[in-house]
């Protein structure tokens, strides 16, 4: 698909500047003599017209090479779900990945008690779709927001996220290091907001304020089928205002927009978050089709119907369009920030020993 049969006329080379010469290549017409077996076919069409042959270099073949390499290596994705118990986190994960990826589905225990402290539990699965293999790790945080006193409940989560950065850093600075450093860093943290319809609670604000500095946060309104459309829109507007007022930057963060095109796409998303989602792993017959949904006495809520809830937008954002971007932001921004602070920490320790006043470590401090 990466061969274009249009743009066959040669492009003009722009003026040479001192350091770099720009030379545009004309689009390929491969002479008949070249036969290329395996690689997706280096074929093109012969240019109509007089007997001038433009030679095809094949630089754009690197895209196919990259694709092959990526398919062979496979991908890794680590998603964390945070929210009070009963908000449908496990169900949502199962709905997103159309299989039982959450811990609850895997464990045999029928009754799970709410733990006394926050636990961090992760479970990994190998999934594959059309030849693309992915190791998906879902990190659950049972106990979050369930205690009577929820002060500092972000701490264990913050610590877990930082521990993953630390593990990566340690491997990266080894002398003998692995060819591919295993990536356990949390790429995305889905935060479940209970559908009160009013505004964010102090717990929500506090958590998101702190964690948005170290990880990509995607807030969602859970169990959105308890809100009417008007209530939903009001709630979302209120949430967006509160996020803005508290300086909370959720994914996609404004400051990481790369160019105008990016900004345009991301602005549209920013106007829609938080997505109001409904999860389900049950299928029902609706209008002759089998759809994922929740059946109630007053109707069936179709999970993938954007008129009913915004699950499809969430899925598209997380999986179909922005997954790579989420991973990139984690590795090139959040991880790098952690690394900078960590490496500067050593200097602070030394500075202490020399009686120089300490700098304050901001975001990664607990």
């Amino acid at each position: 698909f990466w061969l274009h049969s249009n743009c066959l006329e040669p492009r003009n080379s722009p003026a040479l500047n001192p350091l770099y010469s720009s030379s545009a290549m004309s689009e390929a017409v491969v002479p008949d003599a070249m036969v290329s077996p395996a690689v997706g076919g280096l074929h093109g069409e012969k240019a109509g017209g007089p007997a001038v042959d433009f030679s095809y270099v094949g630089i754009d073949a690197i895209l196919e090479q990259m694709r092959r390499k990526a398919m062979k290596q496979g991908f890794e994705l680590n998603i964390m779900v945070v929210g009070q118990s009963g908000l449908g986190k496990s169900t949502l994960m199962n709905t997103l990945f159309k299989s039982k990826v959450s811990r609850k589905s895997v464990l045999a225990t029928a009754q799970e008690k709410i733990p006394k402290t926050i636990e961090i539990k992760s479970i990994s699965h190998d999934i594959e779709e059309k030849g693309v293999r992915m190791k998906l790790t879902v990190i659950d945080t049972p106990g979050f927001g369930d205690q009577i006193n929820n002060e500092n409940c972000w701490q264990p989560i913050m610590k877990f996220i930082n521990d993953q950065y630390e593990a990566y850093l340690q491997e990266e600075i080894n002398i003998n290091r692995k060819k591919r450093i295993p990536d356990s860093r949390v790429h995305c943290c889905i935060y479940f907001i209970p559908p009160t319809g009013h505004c964010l609670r102090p717990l929500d604000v506090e958590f998101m304020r702190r964690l948005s500095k170290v990880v990509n946060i995607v807030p969602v309104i859970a169990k959105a089928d308890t809100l009417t459309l008007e209530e939903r829109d009001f709630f979302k507007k209120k949430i967006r205002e509160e996020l803005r007022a508290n300086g909370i930057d959720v994914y996609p963060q404004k400051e990481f927009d790369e160019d105008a095109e990016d900004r345009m796409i991301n602005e549209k998303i920013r106007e829609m978050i938080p997505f109001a989602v409904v999860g389900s792993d049950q299928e029902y017959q609706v209008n002759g089709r089998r759809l994922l949904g929740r059946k109630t006495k007053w109707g069936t809520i179709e999970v993938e119907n954007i008129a009913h809830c915004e699950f499809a937008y969430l899925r598209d954002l997380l999986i179909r369009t922005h997954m790579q971007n989420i991973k990139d932001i984690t590795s090139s921004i959040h991880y790098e920030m952690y690394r900078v602070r960590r490496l500067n920490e050593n200097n602070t320790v030394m500075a202490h020993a020399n009686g120089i006043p300490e700098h304050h470590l901001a975001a990664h401090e607990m």
Partner: protein
Amino acid sequence: QGQLLIDKGVRPLSLAGHVGFDSLPDQLVNKSICQGFCFNILCIGETGIGKSTLMDTLFNTNFENFESSHFEPQVKLRAQTYDLQESNVRLRLTVVNTVGFGDQMNKQESYQPVVDYIDRQFESYLQEELKIKRSLHNYHDSRVHACLYFISPSGHSLKSLDLVTMKKLDSKVNIIPVIAKADTISKSELHKFKIKIMSELVSNGVQIYQFPLDDETVAKVNTTMNGHLPFAVVGSTEEVSVGNKMVKARQYPWGVVQVENENHCDFVKLREMLICVNMEDLREQTHTRHYELYRRCKLEEMGFKDTGPESKPVSLQQTYEAKRQEFLVELQKREDEMRQMFVQRVKEKESELKEAERELQSRFEQLKRLHADEKAALEEKKRLLDEDQSSFSKRRAAAQLLQAQSLTANGKKDKDRKK
């Protein structure tokens, strides 16, 4: 194949429907398209062997070329960077050519500038990687991804310069040997030449780049191509009319050598292997093998280890801190030394000054004495003069009196006379 991801505790799971992460490779490719690619080729070969022409032919463009003289005192490297684009792929290509390679009388050190250049690029990347605030994603990767070694078409065997150079480079860069100006060798000679070259490389333990066989999509074509090494190439940017087409070729009185005709030379094979099939693998090998080796050696050289004396893992941080301490202690020692030296110098200067002062003092005393002496002498003179003066005035007074007396006596006499 699946070994990379499947480890203990990871179960495979089947999906009940289309999730959509099969678009991940597309997302990755799109990101790379936005970022652009980097590719760096190093061409080593004697002056005039056709390096620049081959590059021009390979990339179908005219790079700025300088004809080098044969009288360079030392081997130098000239790197030029270009921005190329084909359909939606932007490539930042750097072509590095050796200048004066093989021209010197004494070629013992000819390989050194090449090795130094390659190491410098590794070092530059390592420096960036070790920085605290780094931007590896924007970093212009200048590490050499492929090294085309141009072999002279003597038809016999490799020169010792070739073997020595390639041996020095084989653990630092992906070497692809090519036979230059292959239109000067006949087909049968070429076949024997290739076999001789490959066996010499093997017997001297030179590790050239092998096209990778692990991906079944390309394993077959790569295996075939591995058997055609070294590629016998002909380069030309001039076009000659053959049949009803204009093709890149070299026109001789006895015929036309067509560059892209696989019966005439291996140019097409080189282009396919180097660019169309294995560019990404060349980049990956450079990063994961050659660069890692450089990094490991460099860090070990600097004294960093992964495990301490009792085989307990030593963190880089600890080593770094230990080294930093060492460095600070060293600094302190130097500071003390300097301070001591300063104190010493001050003392010396002080004593010098004291000495000078004393000298001055003694001279002053001397002068004072002289002055006193002179004064005394003068006083003596004055006294004598005074004495003289006083005796003179006495005598004068006496003389005056006498005169006065004689006058009065004379007056009396006169008076008497008158009487």
